[in-house]
């Protein structure tokens, strides 16, 4: 993947040339990002910076990368005719004996407008749900929590890549659950469930019922109110 030293992302303008040590994990992160995408629809790496930390299981890379999505030209696929989109991503990658594992992936467009957070608007709350820093310790802890999840719910995946992909979804979901927890006004507890390795989109597609919001359905007569017992 090309890695020019001049990034285009607004938040990445001060970045210098990437350290050669970061290129390999950066390429791996890009490969995971482009997983299941057809050639021509894959994002390219524009810039990367980061650092490495030695951990018990190997080396833990924390990367910030600027990616560029290609323009969408297929009107049957694109929701809107858009130009190239630049994303700022943060990745955490564990290198264990030369084998890489994606622990975390957070990407957002560089032109995202974040509200001041004082008003409880949908966009500000959604932004809070989808963004936010993760500590490295958290990612490491999540690895063992994920192993427990696999045992508890008897999960097996078809390949190592699938397992890595599910791990990154699981970690993102745990962060999401924590934020839902923080925003809940009742006494509910949110956390690991049997659906924790599914993306929100997968969960909606498999388990929910979009017709309820789309179709008013047959009009029924209104029930008489019950009297005083």
């Amino acid at each position, binding site marked *: 993947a090309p890695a020019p030293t001049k990034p285009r992302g607004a938040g990445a303008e001060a970045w210098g040339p990437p350290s050669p040590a970061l290129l390999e994990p950066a390429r791996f992160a890009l490969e995971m990002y482009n997983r299941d995408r057809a050639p021509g629809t894959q994002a390219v790496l524009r810039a990367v910076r980061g650092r490495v930390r030695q951990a018990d299981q190997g080396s833990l890379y924390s990367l910030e990368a600027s990616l560029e999505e290609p323009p969408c030209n297929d009107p049957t696929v694109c929701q809107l005719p858009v130009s190239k989109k630049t994303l700022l991503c943060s990745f955490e990658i564990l290198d264990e004996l030369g084998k890489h594992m994606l622990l975390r992936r957070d990407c957002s467009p560089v032109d995202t407008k974040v509200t001041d957070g004082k008003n409880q608007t949908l966009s500000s709350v959604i932004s809070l749900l989808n963004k936010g820093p993760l500590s490295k310790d958290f990612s490491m802890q999540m690895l063992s929590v994920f192993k427990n999840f696999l045992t508890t719910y008897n999960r097996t995946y078809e390949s190592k890549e699938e397992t890595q992909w599910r791990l990154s979804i699981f970690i993102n979901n745990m962060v999401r659950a924590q934020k839902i927890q923080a925003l*809940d006004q009742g006494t*509910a507890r949110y956390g690991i469930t049997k659906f924790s390795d599914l993306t929100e989109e997968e969960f909606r597609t498999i388990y929910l019922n979009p017709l309820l919001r789309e179709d008013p359905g047959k009009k029924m007569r209104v029930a008489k109110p019950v009297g005083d017992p």
Partner: protein
Amino acid sequence: APPEWDWRNKGAVTNVKNQGMCGSCWAFSVTGNVEGQWFLKQGTLLSLSEQELLDCDKMDKACLGGLPSNAYSAIKNLGGLETEEDYSYQGQMQACNFSAEKAKVYINDSVELSHNEQKLAAWLAKKGPISVAINAFGMQFYRHGISRPLRPLCTPWLIDHAVLIVGYGNRSDIPFWAIKNSWGTDWGEQGYYYLHRGSGACGVNTMASSAVVE
């Protein structure tokens, strides 16, 4: 309405079921309601067939979703519901195999219920469990307790899951609806979801309905 009510203690609710990897919540919500209505009129609790609705309710879309109002019509037009035992759940649409001779339960009509949660509570206590539809925000990660998401996150106009209210009450002064879900007993509180009552949380009051058994 009485201060609290729970149809589970009165034998009107079957065990929690599991829809599997299929968007058939609408069928489970409706069969749960009909199970309750039949119990209250006939005194017998029968576990009823969701698969019959998946296969034979042509107004709805089986695992791709459906509407309780259509399902009531289908039950009425087909001539009733078979039991779970006679027409067991497969979690995917198959050819309709309904047999009128095997139908054990029928309904006469269906009704739409009030949007007022106090009136819904009164109706439930007197008439039985209620089919409702809600915005399922947060349910992917729900474990226990009374859920009350911020309103902008759980808007009443993004309804995407049908469930069954079986009771209500208060826990530490927080009012709740006890909601029977169809994701198995290994989700939530043994398969149940507890949602804040009285605030229109997640649109719980927007699509309440029931079958009528005479």
